């Protein structure tokens, strides 16, 4: 299945990656040519470039659902990779548009370039089919993100966020790499799709297998910010420039999920009883800890950080049940979550830009100060809470359904228990927005076009994913089918 020849199909398989590299290079050059305020078009340029790449990929580089291995078995060109790449590209484009309201980053070419390189890494994570490739992809994703989190050198919090993220990230990468090295040691191969066969034949003691799976899970738990590897998230989200926090909580998390799904289903199909329970425990812990700590937060960014930890917990349910339907559920949930959380951080960025604060008090009376944003907040918070007609509802229904389908009723009950706690604090935010008296009752000014466009797309996404399930569900089905090819 792996051929040594170079074909045009191979180029098509990495078309988005080629596009990303080219776009990053163009941006760096343009950054040198443009001066001063002209640079405000950098965000538009990035977003437009990403849109063109998406369009080209959709037109010319759509894989068959199951796909096949490419580039000497380094990548798998299939639906899972494709759908997630589109998600990352969309997430990056929206982030670039949101950046227009964040003073510290909007005129900096290297910001956009780093964003693109990180997206490149995610894109490779989604399709990596080899342990070495996967590790390199994870590092390509993470290193620009460390820099982005600490991007504002004048701001101590941002620097602290960057350093914290780097330290936690390096640690978890090391653990992941250790797990990979054990895997290679046991099997003599780094090819993901050959691992399981060799793994079976080896007669390795269960305790060792459990240890390996545990090490690998630690690495991914960090990426998706699952408890107990979540400690970085609140501080990093709060300190990092807001668009970066939004990007971290969505695209980066999605990248962690797609790699996790692929690795556990492809490499350890026989050990599913083992990792299924491990992931179920991670899911339970994430939901409980995330939701409980979110209850007491005063800063909306920190609150969203804890909420995103809890959201990772719901998504892990779909992975834990180890069924095709579970993967569909998690993927749908991820799509819903991506648009919702990007919208949330978009609004935080704008309010922060105007009031200089991301405290809950800064959002008091937002519905009076900007009625449209008040309505957008309804869509966002209720989508996170899992209430129709917004996207999150269907995601939650699917993941709980997948748990019941599998017979893991207890996991579904933990899920609904948490959904109720979650709804509480999302409603408190809405109450703040609608009822509390604003400290400054002046209307918020009109935001610039790129921000409006990005928020509009996100809110539209929340609504569309909330009732027009068909296309997105079939994408999710393709993802699940391509990951579970056995």
């Amino acid at each position, binding site marked *: 299945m792996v051929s040594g020849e170079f074909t045009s199909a191979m180029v098509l398989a990495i078309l988005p990656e080629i596009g990303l590299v080219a776009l990053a290079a163009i941006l760096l050059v343009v950054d040198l040519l443009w001066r001063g305020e002209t640079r405000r078009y950098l965000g538009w340029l990035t977003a437009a470039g990403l849109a063109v790449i998406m369009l080209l990929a959709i037109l010319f580089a759509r894989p068959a659902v199951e796909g096949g291995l490419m580039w000497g078995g380094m990548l798998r060109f299939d639906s899972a990779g494709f759908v997630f790449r589109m998600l990352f590209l969309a997430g990056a484009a929206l982030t670039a548009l949101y950046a227009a309201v964040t003073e510290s980053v909007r005129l900096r070419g290297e910001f956009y370039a780093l964003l693109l390189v990180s997206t490149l890494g995610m894109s490779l994570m989604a399709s990596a089919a080899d342990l070495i490739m996967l590790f390199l992809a994870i590092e390509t994703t993470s290193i620009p993100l460390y820099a982005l989190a600490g991007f504002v050198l004048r701001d101590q919090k941002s620097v602290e966020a960057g350093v914290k993220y780097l330290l936690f990230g390096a640690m978890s990468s090391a653990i992941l790499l250790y797990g990979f090295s054990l895997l290679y040691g046991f099997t003599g191969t780094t090819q993901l799709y050959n691992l399981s066969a060799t793994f079976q034949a080896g007669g390795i003691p269960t305790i060792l297998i459990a240890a390996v799976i545990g090490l690998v899970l630690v690495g991914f738990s960090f990426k998706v910010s699952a408890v107990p590897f979540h400690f970085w998230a609140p501080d990093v989200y709060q300190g990092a420039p807001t668009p970066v926090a939004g990007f971290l909580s969505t695209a980066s998390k999605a990248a962690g999920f797609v790699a996790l799904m692929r690795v556990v289903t492809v490499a350890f199909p026989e050990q599913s009883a083992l990792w299924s329970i491990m992931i179920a425990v991670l899911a339970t812990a994430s939901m409980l800890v995330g939701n409980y700590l979110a209850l007491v937060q005063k800063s909306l960014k920190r609150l969203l950080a804890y909420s995103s930890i809890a959201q990772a917990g719901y998504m892990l349910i779909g992975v834990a049940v180890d069924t095709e339907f579970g993967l569909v559920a998690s993927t749908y949930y991820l799509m819903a979550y991506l648009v919702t959380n990007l919208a949330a951080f978009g609004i935080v960025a704008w309010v922060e830009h105007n009031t200089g604060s991301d405290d809950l008090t800064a959002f008091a009376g937002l*519905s009076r100060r900007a009625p449209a944003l008040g309505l957008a907040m309804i869509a966002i918070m209720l989508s996170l809470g899992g209430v129709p*007609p917004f996207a999150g509802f269907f995601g939650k229904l699917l993941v709980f*359904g997948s748990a019941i389908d599998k017979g893991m009723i207890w996991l579904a*009950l933990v899920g*609904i228990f948490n959904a109720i706690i979650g709804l509480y604090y999302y*409603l408190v935010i809405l*109450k703040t927005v609608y009822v509390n008296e604003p400290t400054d009752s002046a209307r918020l000014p009109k935001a610039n076009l790129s921000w409006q466009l990005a928020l509009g797309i996100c809110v539209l996404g929340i609504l569309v994913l909330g009732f027009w399930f*068909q296309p997105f569900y079939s994408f999710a089905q393709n993802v699940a089918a391509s990951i579970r090819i056995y």
Partner: protein
Amino acid sequence: MQFPILSVLIFTPLAAALILLLLPEEKKNWIKGLALAAGIIVLALSVWLYASYDIAAGGYQFQERVDWLPALGISYFVGVDGISLPLVFLSGLVIVSGVLVSWNVHDRPREFFSFLMFLGASVLGVFCSLDLFMLFFFFELAVFPKYLMIVTWGSPKTREYGGMKLTLYLFIGSMLALIGALAIYFGSGLRTFDMLALENAGFAMAFQRLWFPFVFLGFAILGGIFPFHSWAPDGHVAAPTAISMLLAGVEMKVGAFAALRVGIMLLPEGARQWAWLILILATVNVVYGAFIALIQTDFKYVIGFSSVSHMGLVLIGFATLSREGLIGAGMQMFSHGVMTALFFSIVGMVYDRAHTRDIPKLGGLARKMPWAAIGFIVGGLVSMGMPGFSGFVAEFPVFMGAWRAAPVVAVIAILGILITAGYIFLVIRRVFFGEVPEELAGVTDVTVKDKIVIGGLAVVMIGLGVFPSLMVPMVESGVKTILAILGGA
């Protein structure tokens, strides 16, 4: 293809809600006008539906079906029968009344009326659903309008507490029901949410016994079942008038209706197994609710607890699983809906003028607001089950059914009605008769719009009491379907 009348019915308020959000804020008259127009269209359509339903044929009529997500067997599937049609009509009545009594909302009217329309669409969607997923979708669609309307436009003292309590209780209920509904979906092996297909799924006895409480109690929490009823008085009191009317008048019926449709009709054997428990809880509802209503000094709390008490009669009717009981429950859902909407509208009118709901501070208002007094007395007579009013037509069959199922329940429940008579007379005497306190000397009469609401709702209740044949045969045709399921199981 026939005219998709049910879709028009459901999507009219939904479309109105969205258009309202796009209107400029300053155009208050357009906003109110549009909301009223949407309400009147809904009412007119519901009357038309009611009149053209073929009772002799029975079953689900005006069906429409469009695939929604075929991969999971989800479809947009609507249809109405003899149980749901009166409730559709009830929704139309209460939505129009709600718009009329909210004419003076000044704070962000655009959002207010838009959310009101969302709530309307939600209840209509539930009553018309024949697809379990769709029922759920519309059921939960009510979450945000309910919460936001209570906390934003509710009475300042308790709105945050009341709104949150109500929303969380109901969300807990709906989440329990969701788990049950998903279990039904996966357990049936049919891979469809079509309730008509699920009715014939033939679930095993153990399965039904396990999941019936999830579904039934989950939905019945919204119906105000004891001991999960305490959201109702707190929430209703905290809410603005129109929302109290919709919550107590229609939303509680949504809960009861969903408990019937999903709980009893999909898991009939489970219902049989658990009927004793529902009977006990519902009896407590009737008596306990009435007792607590008796000792309230807040005008609105009296009505809030009376709703708890009256919803108990609906649930008793369900739990008898008999022809009389179910007909009574169906009638009671409608009758109580109209009655409590009328009560809450009058409480709102009194409060708007007297600026207090404290019963000891009120008095003699019959002289100041004769329409309100008459309306309240009519509602009171309905609530006591006086012959000649819709309450009699509803409560009498419930007692008949209860007598056959368990005479002691009937006796205790009738006791509850005596207490009801007690608190109704007390309130009428203290609020509407006696001396007018000095502070209330300046109270003015109700407006023309208020009179339309009072008159309209009162006429419906009296009309139904005098001519029960306007609705009983309709409900009976719906009950036939349920009995067929119960008998066939």
